[in-house]
């Protein structure tokens, strides 16, 4: 039996540590202690999970329809201009369509990013800042988009 035990580990009895010079204490990083807050956020996580599924199904219809109208039918992408958008938004149907798509897509994407941050951001501070940035951007985009759809003036100069 050949043994290749050329080890980078020194003998345990070596210089090592003693009472005056103890080995560094390793804090268990994933301990669930009494101080760990018990999360009681009700059904928020379930609502978020359900929302992802339901909004995803609706978005398939909304987004594919949107792409079809904007890019393929009736001259395709070349017809898009101010006049085309103004014409479409003259009808409440397309206003509701675009508004719904804006809200669902933004919330769907934001919730997806929220779970990504929860899963991958390790330090609480990083989490806080990333989520702050995410929520700010989401609220800003949704409000701006909603404002534009509702106050759109086709005769703007």
């Amino acid at each position, binding site marked *: 039996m050949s043994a290749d035990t050329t080890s980078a580990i020194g003998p*345990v009895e070596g210089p090592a540590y003693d009472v005056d010079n103890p080995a560094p204490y390793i804090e268990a990083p994933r301990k669930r202690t009494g101080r760990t807050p018990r999360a009681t956020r009700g059904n928020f996580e379930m609502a978020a999970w359900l929302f992802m599924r339901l909004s995803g199904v609706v978005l398939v219809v909304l987004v594919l329809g949107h792409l079809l109208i904007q890019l393929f039918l009736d001259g395709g992408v070349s017809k898009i201009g101010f006049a085309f958008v103004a014409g479409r938004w003259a009808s409440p149907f397309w206003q509701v369509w675009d508004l719904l798509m804006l809200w669902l897509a933004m919330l769907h994407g934001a919730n997806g990013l929220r779970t990504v941050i929860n899963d991958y951001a390790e330090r609480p501070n990083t989490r806080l800042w990333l989520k702050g940035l995410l929520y700010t951007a989401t609220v800003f985009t949704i409000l701006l988009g909603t404002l534009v759809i509702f106050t759109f003036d086709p005769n703007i100069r």
Partner: protein
Amino acid sequence: MATPVLDKVEAESAASPYITVTFRIRRFNPEVSDAVVWEDFQVEIDPKERVLDGLHKIKWDLDGTLTFRRSCAHGICGSDAMRINGKNRLACKTLIKDLNPEKPITVEPIKGLTVLKDLVVDMEPFFQAYRDVMPFLITKGNEPTRERKQSPEDRERFDDTTKCILCAACTSSCPVFWNDGQYFGPAAIVNAHRFIFDSRDEGGEQRLEILNDKDGVWRCRTTFNCTDACPRGIEITKAIQEVKRALITRRF
């Protein structure tokens, strides 16, 4: 007694089934150094033997400081879950011949739990999550004077999740658990499932409420790592989704 004709080659291989296998083991000893090193051991071993036998040979003949957990050594106690060639398995259920012995076999402690020494990790967070789901029968009312009866169909409902041996192979293969370790983890959910769907148990509502937590079943991303890792072949991801469905149908 004369044996029938035996091929010479066959006879030779029967005489010496041993091959030389390199075990590349992730060593860590906090009493010596806070750095982690990979150490290679060459072991003569029968490819029909298991990785655990190789570890035993190393510990008994080459380096007695190698530290790992094992108890029954037959895939029941769930002590020796480790990351072998990058996949969580039980060392006592993994045969050398199934691992490509040409290349070094890497052996690491399971991920996501604090390493105490070599292949030994601190299982406390894992068992804390297990205790949190109350893995025991909860009933109301008087004790029956005879056993609590159950039809074979009712027993079949949660049969799959009774097989869990709490080896932590699933939980420590879960990328969500790797991050902050606050997620309950597949093993705890499997053991909650075992009681939630038990017709004799009346604590299902409490357990569902616990798993409805921020770090409960909703953090599952259905990556199927747990199902792949389970040495008992439990359909863990399916069990987690069944708990999710129970949570939703309970509300609506």
